């Protein structure tokens, strides 16, 4: 069973996205990447990211990750920003009382996208 299923699947996602997206938007290190972006559309993407990190159903490929973030890499997206997002992912799951070993699993999946996201 994936972490996604263990924490309650789709139904648990709405709450998780709220917690996660709030953290991201309030973080001075990375919030400028989200300025001017429609919040609803952005929240849907945050949800897609969380679902993927939790091992839920998705069809994103490494190539999609590259294309989807290329405009941000051009604006200076780098490892320090990726680290900030990883931090918020962990904090969000901790806040939602997800057991530590499952958080580690989610972090490993998210970590595996680093090179594609950063266009390396």
């Amino acid at each position: 069973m994936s972490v996604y299923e263990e924490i309650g699947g789709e139904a648990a996602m709405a709450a998780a996205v709220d917690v996660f997206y709030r953290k991201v938007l309030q973080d001075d290190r990375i919030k400028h990447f989200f300025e001017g972006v429609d919040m609803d559309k952005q929240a849907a993407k945050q949800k897609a990211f969380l679902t993927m990190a939790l091992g839920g159903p998705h069809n994103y490929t490494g190539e999609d990750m590259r294309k989807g973030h290329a405009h941000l890499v051009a604006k200076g997206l780098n490892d320090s920003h990726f680290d900030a997002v990883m931090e918020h992912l962990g904090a969000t799951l901790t806040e939602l009382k997800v057991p530590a070993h499952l958080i580690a699993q989610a972090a490993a999946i998210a970590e595996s996208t680093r090179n594609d996201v950063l266009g390396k």
Partner: protein
Amino acid sequence: MPKVIYSGQSFECGEQSVLDCLTSQGVQIPSSCHSGLCHTCMVQAVSGEIPKKAQSGLKDTLVAQNCFLPCVCYPEGDIEVTLYDGGLDRLEATVTDLRNLSADILGIRLKPSRAFDYRAGQFINVFKDENTVRSYSLASVPSLDEELFLNVRKVPNGVVSGWIFDHLKAGDTVTISEAGGECFYVPGKPEQNILLIGTGSGLAPLYGIIRDALHSGHKGKVSLYHGCNTAPELYLVDELRKLAQTYLNFSYTPCISQGEVPQDCVSGMVLDVALAANPALSGWRAFLCGHPEMVKSAKQKTFFAGVSMSEIFADPF
């Protein structure tokens, strides 16, 4: 075998998703995740049963309009599909009443020439001519008002508002569109508290939404904050005060940001006043209408104060 009907054509769906069925037939629908997450491919059902899974994660107002995600839709029966807001049909309407609500806001009542389905808070387009169109929010409520009610603000050098103020009169016929937009009240959570923040003629959709909610038996708080620069710009004041006397869960706070502040108004920017009075908004629903900068800021601030993204409904204009 279920069929997918689109634009007058019928396609065998088989075991495919509705999205795959349509795109394999050459229908252009933008899509991204193919997992029901990104909402890029959202379409609207005209008829037929929508499987529950195909609406999971969508806002209540989108579900209420039969929107769904075709990438995760495996229909059991025939389903007819259209692109979302893929064009609102036009119709004629007769102007039945025009009166000033304040110096720069005109209240217009319109009688559509045919049956007209809408929800309070949605918008319609008003056509001055073929190429000159503006959107106006509906302040009327289908179950309470016989006619459509718009609040038109006189925009300096505004082509359409100028025409409405200077030339339109009772008895005239105008071309309007069907109603669109997703800023409206959906019943089903009667105990939920609702915060409504509007500036200027952003009161129009809120006035409809509030009356819709109260008459639907909403039990939670319904708290309206209406902001204007100066006190004479406030409008529908008597109607709103009367409503607050009738419904004890409804409160009306007019906010004035410049000039003299009457005793029964609060001094300050409407968003600041509303958030100072309601700093913890977890579990609330929020409607935010009016000045684009205010709406943008309000979306973020109400979200930070605890409103879920899926419970924020906004209409900047």
